[in-house]
């Protein structure tokens, strides 16, 4: 049928109780007067699903019924403008709606979820897919009817396969499948798309034209992306939510080859909650110029050599580094039961397993460090933070959490999928575009009671360098985001192939890397470095923490296989989940940096055609 654009994985959600729901809020809030019949249609189809959906299984007495049914619906208006070197590649505006229906069989303790079976293609009519955009009643009833039927039948099948699988295991899982939470009713006003104030086509042309001044670039692409999303959630427990969000972004990837054939990349990105808050053309041109200038400098820089020793991550690099390292570790929910052990292996190699589960109370940072995840924070010292939300995608109110206090692990991020350390959600079951919600950070704030000034940190760094009698030491000024910086899909796939095995054990991709010579403080740009083996364990013994801070707004990937892994911090606005990390400069005592490797590419056989700086 209608294409299920973001098809849900089978590592699905969790469930609640019908009993509970029955006693809870009647329709506390009346439907707002905006001609939106969505919730009404959901309620009415839900009423049928709750009372009349049942299957008789041969050989059993009582018919099977769902103990939990959930409707999610996503209403998206998207504008995308892409330009390269001053010319428009495309400009599109679309409006779509998607639904995802989930039904659960069994009970909170053991149900049809958290099981990765051997599912195949289930046909054209599924439990998810595109639905009508009119916000009308009748067509949505029809779509929900079929999707609910399908979700229920799938759950019945999965439940029986899961129980068969469990009966083959020596030890049964001792964790519940789904946490019990208080239902919420919260219907917010709908945000209407507003992107007509500025001529975005022309801005994209004008901004990207700045890159014409760099004929050394092979490819470049500047993407303006605007999103208005309204998400609906209705559960058989009584939760009813309508919440809107918007996002505006400019993302650019720049590519070239060094003269020896080493592929080099750079990127530029900026994010805002509303289109009007995006920087103007001059500011974007300036940002693109900085990236392009650095990239051109990288072309001329010497290839990096293997190195082991102190590494200073300046705040601009430390914040994205923490985003990559902590993303998987902060996840406190259990992984799903996998029918195929290969799933387990994939998760491990991409760093999808948390190193911190089961370690509550253990010291994970130096003693003065505090780590807070605050979904309610709007800004950090006046700089906007992007990761805020009030209710998560499972209908649980967002909580501000102290994750690390005085260096010791206190809490993990929880969705409604229980884990070894907690069987309750703390409102961090997040996802974008109807993907499977998983424990995900919002605004992550790193602070420490023991910091030093930038000068002092640098001095400490150089002292260590001298102590170890190294000719030079490494400063990382910016981390790469390959999903933005790589323009061509095949190049990106190549990178993934080389990174795949190492991501789980701490391979990191620095972008702007300098050698600092302690003898005279001279700095020298190098290209092609990769950090290896930098796992969260290294955070226990940070050698120094700066008193500065950098706000890193970024997109968490929602792509299956990326989401929740060490690659999860590599996202784009198109299909990403906004988050922010605030961090100071960080000094590590010993980091292994691998020098330039990989097959060089051959330079083009024909010289580049002319590119004039002004059109």
């Amino acid at each position, binding site marked *: 049928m209608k294409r299920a654009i973001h098809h849900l994985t089978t590592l699905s959600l969790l469930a609640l109780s019908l009993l509970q729901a029955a006693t809870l809020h009647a329709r506390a809030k009346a439907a707002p007067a905006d001609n939106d019949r969505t919730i009404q249609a959901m309620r009415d189809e839900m009423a*049928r699903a709750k009372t009349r959906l049942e299957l008789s299984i041969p050989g059993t007495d009582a018919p099977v019924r769902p103990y939990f049914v959930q409707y999610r619906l996503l209403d998206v208006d998207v504008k995308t403008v892409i330009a390269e070197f001053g010319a428009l590649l495309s400009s599109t505006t679309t409006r779509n709606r998607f639904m995802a229906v989930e039904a659960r069989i069994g009970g909170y303790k053991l149900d049809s979820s958290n099981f990765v079976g051997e599912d195949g293609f289930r046909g054209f009519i599924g439990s998810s897919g595109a639905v*009508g*955009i009119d916000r009308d009643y009748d067509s949505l009833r029809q779509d929900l009817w079929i999707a609910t039927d399908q979700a229920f039948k799938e759950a019945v099948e999965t439940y029986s396969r899961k129980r068969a699988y469990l009966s083959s295991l020596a030890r049964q899982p001792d964790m519940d499948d789904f946490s019990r939470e208080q239902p919420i009713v919260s219907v917010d006003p709908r945000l209407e798309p507003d992107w007509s104030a500025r001529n975005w086509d022309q801005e994209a042309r004008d901004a990207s034209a700045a890159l014409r001044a760099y004929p050394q670039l092979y490819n470049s692409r500047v993407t303006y992306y605007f999103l208005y999303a309204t998400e609906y959630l209705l559960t058989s427990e009584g939760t009813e939510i309508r919440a809107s969000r918007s996002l505006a972004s400019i993302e650019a990837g720049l590519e070239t080859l060094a003269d020896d054939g080493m592929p080099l990349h750079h990127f530029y990105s900026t994010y805002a909650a509303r289109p009007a808050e995006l920087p103007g053309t001059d500011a974007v041109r300036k940002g693109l110029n900085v990236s392009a200038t650095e990239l051109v400098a990288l072309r001329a820089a010497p290839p990096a050599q293997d190195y082991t020793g102190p590494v200073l991550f300046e705040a601009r690099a430390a914040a994205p580094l923490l985003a990559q390292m902590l993303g998987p570790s902060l996840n406190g929910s259990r992984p799903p039961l996998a029918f195929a052990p290969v799933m387990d292996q994939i998760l491990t190699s991409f760093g999808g397993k948390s190193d911190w589960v089961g370690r509550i109370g253990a010291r994970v940072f130096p003693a003065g460090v505090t780590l807070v995840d605050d979904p309610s924070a709007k800004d950090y010292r006046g700089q906007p933070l992007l990761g805020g939300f009030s209710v998560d995608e499972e209908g649980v109110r967002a909580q501000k959490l102290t994750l690390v206090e005085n260096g010791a692990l206190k809490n993990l991020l929880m969705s409604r999928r229980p884990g070894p350390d907690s069987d309750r959600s703390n409102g961090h079951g997040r996802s974008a575009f109807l993907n499977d919600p998983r424990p995900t950070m919002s605004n992550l704030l790193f602070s420490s009671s023991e910091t030093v000034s930038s000068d002092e940190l640098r001095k400490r760094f150089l002292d260590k360098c001298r102590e170890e009698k190294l000719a030079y030491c490494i400063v990382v000024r910016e981390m790469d985001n390959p999903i933005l910086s790589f323009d061509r899909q095949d190049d990106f796939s190549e990178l993934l192939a080389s990174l795949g095995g190492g991501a789980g054990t701490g391979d990191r991709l620095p972008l702007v890397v300098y050698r600092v010579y302690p003898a005279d403080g001279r700095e020298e740009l190098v290209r092609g470095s990769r950090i290896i083996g930098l796992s969260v364990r290294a955070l226990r013994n940070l050698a120094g923490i700066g008193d500065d801070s950098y706000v890193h707004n970024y997109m968490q990937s929602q792509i299956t296989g990326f989401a929740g892994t060490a690659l999860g911090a590599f996202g784009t606005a198109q299909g990403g989940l906004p988050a922010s990390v605030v961090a100071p400069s960080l000094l590590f005592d010993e980091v292994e940096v691998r020098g330039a490797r990989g097959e060089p590419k051959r330079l083009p056989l024909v010289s580049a055609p002319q590119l004039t700086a002004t059109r």
Partner: protein
Amino acid sequence: MTTPGRLRVSPLLLVLSLLGVCLPAQLPVAQAAPRNGDGRPEANAARSPLLGAMKAELDRSLDVLGKLDPPAYFIGYTVTETQRADVSGSNGALLTSAEAKNRWLEVAVRSGSYDLDNTRKVGERMAGNAGPGSPVPVDDDAEVLRRAIWLETDRQYRAAAEALIKIKTGKEVKVQTAEGQAPDFSRETPRTSIGPQASFTLDRRPWEQKVRAYTRVFRDSPAIINSIVTFAAQARNQYQVTSEGTQLQFGEVRYRLELFIQGKAPDGMDINRYFNFDWVNPADAPDEKAVAAAEATMRKELEGLVAAPLIEPTAGPAMLTGRAAAVFFHEVFGHRAEGHRQKDIMEGQTFARKVGEPILPDFLSITDDPTMKRLATTDLLGYYQFDDEGVPAQRVPLIEHGVLRNFEMSRSPLIGFPNSNGHGRRQLGFAPVSRQGNLIVQSNKAVTNAQLRAKLVELIKSQGKPFGLLIDDIAGGFTFTGRGQPQAFQVLPLVVYKVFPDGRPDELVRGVDIVGTPLVSLTKIVATGDTPEVFNGYCGAESGSVPVAAASPAILISELEVQKKETSTDKPPILPPPAHDVVKTGASQ
């Protein structure tokens, strides 16, 4: 709406999705395309600045790459500009309504020589592929376009040079068939033609209202669990330059309305009905009456099929209505008359050495004529001016009075067929191969459809069968042309009736596919009707999905075999449709 992907998707799997329109009793009238071969722009045509930029970059590339070892002996650039408006709806509401414009660059680089180049298939190895091309700006910016061409050309040359080296090594150790001795690329006269650029302006709002209304009607039937209606307008302009001197600019606008409904039989079998309208002139859009009639038929057939009994595998006489026959010919004959299938060692080469021999009854002739714009009042989807290798479309007599005469040819020559006849076609991003355009079946043993039906009943009686089959609609099918599989075809009939010899009313049945082998099946056609009917659709094969048409009168086959259809085991929905639920749970408003 192609056949589900349960079969391996490979070049050997040919999926066709076609649907047609009934025609009044008219003989085919071919309208030749206005051709312009003298290189001057047509009166209302302006030469796009793209061509100049492409030519300049081509000259620069050839100057360097043409002198390397191995040399690039042919370089071709194609920029395809697509303007689209899409309005779709489902179950009474709008699904999408959007417009978009883009340009796509494809670069073909051939290294070696016309006789032996990087596209040669040696043994089982597939030809190398350096990617489908890249998007280029919709703004006319020569410098940015040339930059994209520069990088894409480099990529394609490297892939071609690498492939050629492998081929030259592989060729020494692999057995060559006689068919494989043909050159790799034909020499063709370069063409220059500057046609008018196509575009449309469209107010989507009236179509949004229509699409909503067309799909809302289907909610009236409890048997219809899902409906999708799509309107699409597309203007496509192609700009092509080659190192041989060809320079083309041409475009066309097409409109399409598709209706699709789904249901489920009590045993879980999925039942679909589909209908499409295709037109070129905005004034030819189907009116409310035509759409309503199509929808009523679809609904009636779907409701009938949901309730229809299953039939068992059987073999016996069958009549195919014109539109069903057209798909039958497209699958069973048309694909096997595609030139490259006579060459590749992996192919079954069903007809490779049968030129000049009778393969059909002598009353049948078949041509493939992409120069035909319309058949009677129906626009033909397989019309085009130039194929995707820059060769003018040509009318090709494939079968004359039963005798095989020719193949649909791309620029990949066969022994005895050194030239293209303008059938090298592809979907954007694929390499062209020989494909069908408008496959037209003509008969000089035509009787009225009523007489044909009488003949069917006679055959049933003379063969002593309890019933025969009347096949009214075919969804498409797949045909195995590769050597690894039996040379069989399978065609998926959607609307099948049992016809009884005793005059009882026809009985709608479901659950069978038509199977057979081409050389046998084609000779069992015993008579035809006198009314050609047209199918317009998109045909998928190794060069992607291309628009095609097929036209045929009804045919009578003395023996046709049907086998059980693969089917879904998912039960019908547990609850009745919300609009048809008599129990008022949840009607809380």
